[in-house]
């Protein structure tokens, strides 16, 4: 589903961010991605949704290869992914509903099926009653739920979350984390980068640890030993 084969990413001015990474994430998996700041977590995730292409090696995501994908292929791929960030990235001048609907509108989904899909996604994240609120009228945790609803609305096979709880307090963090677990339990894979070691420690999920661009620990390998 997601396969990295000897993937290296070098940026022009900052050098190697991801260094010869080979890994596989299967259907329905829940994977934590950890490591110190600057380890290359964000760079790795960006290559999953092909915002960046590897300098060498190959990334394959659901049949799309980083070696051959056109801009159009990448756009098509992203409709099957849900991407969530630390800073929510909602549009301030649109309501929660409109923010979620946006993802469908701009990919040419017919009007008639947008509304029910939006309602379902908002219900799924527990915001059924706040669809008409603007982001500024919502708490951080609620804003992140809107962002997750937007990520979910296209029925993705994987949610890619780059420090989704980085801006939230403990309570909100637990809420968002529980939401991601529920989503995962329903069959959607989740790849989540996080600094929150406490969150990880209490879980049985697979953990990938990065340092200086390399994956230095994979709990799946450790279990196999």
């Amino acid at each position, binding site marked *: 589903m997601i396969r990295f084969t000897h993937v290296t990413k070098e940026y022009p001015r900052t050098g190697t961010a991801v260094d010869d990474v080979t890994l596989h994430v299967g259907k329905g998996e829940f994977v934590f991605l950890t490591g110190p700041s600057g380890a290359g977590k964000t760079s790795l995730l960006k290559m999953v949704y092909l915002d960046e292409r590897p300098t060498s090696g190959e990334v394959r995501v659901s049949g799309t290869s980083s070696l051959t994908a056109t801009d159009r292929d990448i*756009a*098509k791929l*992203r409709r099957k992914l849900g991407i969530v960030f630390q800073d929510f*990235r909602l*549009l301030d001048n649109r309501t929660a509903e409109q923010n979620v609907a*946006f*993802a469908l509108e701009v*990919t040419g989904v017919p009007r008639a099926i947008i509304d029910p899909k939006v309602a379902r996604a908002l219900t799924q994240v527990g915001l059924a009653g706040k669809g008409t609120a603007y982001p500024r009228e919502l708490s951080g945790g609620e804003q992140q739920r809107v962002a997750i609803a*937007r990520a979910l609305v296209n029925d993705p096979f994987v949610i890619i979350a780059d420090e989704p709880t980085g801006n939230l307090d403990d309570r909100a963090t637990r809420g968002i984390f529980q939401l991601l677990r529920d989503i995962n339990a329903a069959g959607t894979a989740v790849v989540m980068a996080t600094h929150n070691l406490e969150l990880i420690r209490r879980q049985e999920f697979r953990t990938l640890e990065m340092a200086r661009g390399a994956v230095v620990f994979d709990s799946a390998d450790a279990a196999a030993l």
Partner: protein
Amino acid sequence: MRSLRDALITFRRTPLLSALSVTTIAFSLFAFGLFGLVALNIREALDRLEDRVEIRAFVADGTAPESIGQAAGDIAHYPEVLNATMVTQEQALARAQKELGDFRDVFEGAVLPASIDVRLKPGMRNPATVKRVAARVKAFPFVDDVRFGEEWIEKLYRLRNIAGIAGVVLGLTFAAVSCIIIGATIRMAVLSRAKEIAIMRLVGATDGYIRRPFIIEGLLQGVLGGLLALLLTYFARSLINRYVIETIFFDRRVALLGILFGVVIGFMGSVFSVGRHLRRV
């Protein structure tokens, strides 16, 4: 449909920017329109002058009027010729006296040569054709001399060519300036919507889809700019008519062409810049 709405939303959300853009396009086209009017009126004036272009062949004394009449008939059948009229000695005298008015006495007892006055068809009044016809007319044995204001015609034509070239050069310059201004407007529009564009990319909107509203916006600005320019030009021309000199205006087809030109500028300006700027957000 959504793209059109998006383009309109941009208009509404950044009314100042959009208005500025339309105005700059309008002023560029206005400058172009003013020059176009000047060129049009020079041409019109030239055409009127050209109406007077004629070849006058003076006939030797004592030539039989029948021979002159027959020659005039022959000449009238040349493909380039509109008409050829015989002017007898008496008629020449009468005409000279009429033209000189108070000084008619000067011609008392004078003898003016008879002539054949040849007028060319409208499309044929260029120096080369005039010379060729003059040479043919001169071949008649009883024709003494042929006058056709050679230098005058050539100067006239040079003036017209300079006007034409200046028009093209200035027009293209203005078009380029407009494209640059549209590019700058789109740059700002892209920047003001950078977040929205980034999210569109993230959720899988295609590049074509992301570009469309900007291109539609460019087109709309072109149309509005063109209309505004037309109004400004018309207004300027009215002022000139009232205070300076009677001039003619573009006909409907040319006016439409001007608006179309605005649309083309809007389209080119947006297409060329949108890709470049989108890559940066």
